[in-house]
């Protein structure tokens, strides 16, 4: 199995290190640490992709440069779980290379030990976010490759 990017591995270790009941608190904190959305996204969600699989409205945007992927999330304050999932992905993947992002196992979130506390159904939202991030990273990479060959 591919190794997780170091920052994501650290987040997973943080979750593994605390007692199950403290994992919810950690998830809450991850959501609180989600950076505010830059101005270019706040006016409208048009430039962002909605993750319909999340229980509450979540919008994400991915910007890629050759060596780094940048992630932007918009999740309402009344949806702390969804914000927490976004916070985990932001803390773990912001600034990673496109390949590192694409290599993250789709089921990495099972290692967070949240299934019993949050329920597997809710965790699907995080899987969906990762899938859409990868989709955008792939599209950007393929778009660039096509552009170069022209």
């Amino acid at each position, binding site marked *: 199995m591919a190794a997780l990017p170091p920052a994501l591995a650290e987040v997973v270790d943080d979750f593994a290190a605390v007692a199950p009941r403290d994992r919810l608190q950690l*998830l809450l904190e991850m959501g609180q640490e989600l950076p505010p959305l830059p101005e270019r996204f706040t006016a409208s969600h048009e430039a962002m992709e909605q993750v*319909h699989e999340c*229980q509450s409205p979540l919008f994400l945007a991915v910007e890629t440069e050759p060596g780094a992927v940048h992630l932007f999330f918009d999740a309402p304050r*009344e949806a702390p779980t969804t914000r927490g999932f976004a916070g985990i992905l932001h803390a773990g993947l912001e600034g990673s290379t496109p390949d590192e992002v694409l290599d993250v196992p789709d089921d990495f979130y099972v290692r967070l030990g949240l299934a*019993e506390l949050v*329920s597997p159904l809710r965790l699907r*939202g995080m899987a969906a976010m990762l899938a859409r991030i990868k989709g955008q990273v792939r599209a950007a990479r393929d778009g660039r490759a096509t552009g170069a060959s022209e």
Partner: protein
Amino acid sequence: MPLPTDPDAKLAAYAHPERLVTTAWLAEHLSDPGLVVVESDEDVLLYETGHVPGAVKVDWHTDLNDPVTRDYVDAERFAALLSEKGIGRDTTVVFYGDRNNWWAAYALWVFTLFGHPDVRLLDGGRAAWLAEGRPMTTEQTVRTRADYPVVERSDAPVRAFRDDVLAHLGRPMVDVRSPSEFSGETLHMPDYPQEGAVRGGHIPGATNVPWAKAAAEDGTFRTVDELRDLYEGQAGLSADDDVVVYCRIGERSSHTWFVLTHLLGYEKVRNYDGSWTEWGNSVRVPIEQGA
């Protein structure tokens, strides 16, 4: 001893005013012995961001659903949960939550399966409490353990299974989902995850009354006259009807179950919690499409 009924004039007009409390009543009785406030939300972390002082949390996924079988927890698990939350069989339980008390009504309905005597909803839920600037805290609630008895669930009076619904065809049924789910145009409510039904549409003969119509803009329940107009004037129900309500997994319809049972006083309302995720996947059950 159950706590006194909220004497509020709006509540007094409902069939069972003792099933609802106002924010003012709750604020006044918050520290009464014999009362436990339960927060039940869609989002499993919302309680942790701040809750009514002294409230405990009950989560519909992780506390009330059986982790393996598609069913509610059994009598032992329910007793253990309530004991841990400091709720005894004679405790007055007031539920509140997000989104017009959607999940709070669901939790209240599950407590009803176990016959918990005194269950009430906070009119307006979490939003009303917050809008009035009433106190919220992140302080961990510590309640003395209670000794809740092991009481077997009695599903039949308020819960319908698929075969019950098949036998009920031709009698009043309310589909509380969005109009596009009802017509079969979509399989899940707008902006929500698809929870896997292979067919769209509704149970033949069901009337579509989206659940949230029972709530006013501020999240409190509509007045008894407005509710009568909605369910009787427009949807054609009457108080002595035998009614089945359903949605997608039985949560939105517990809200409507509460309205028909406790606010309008219908005596025979059952919630079909298998709802569309079961019906829309069942082989050879009849389905109707279109508005």
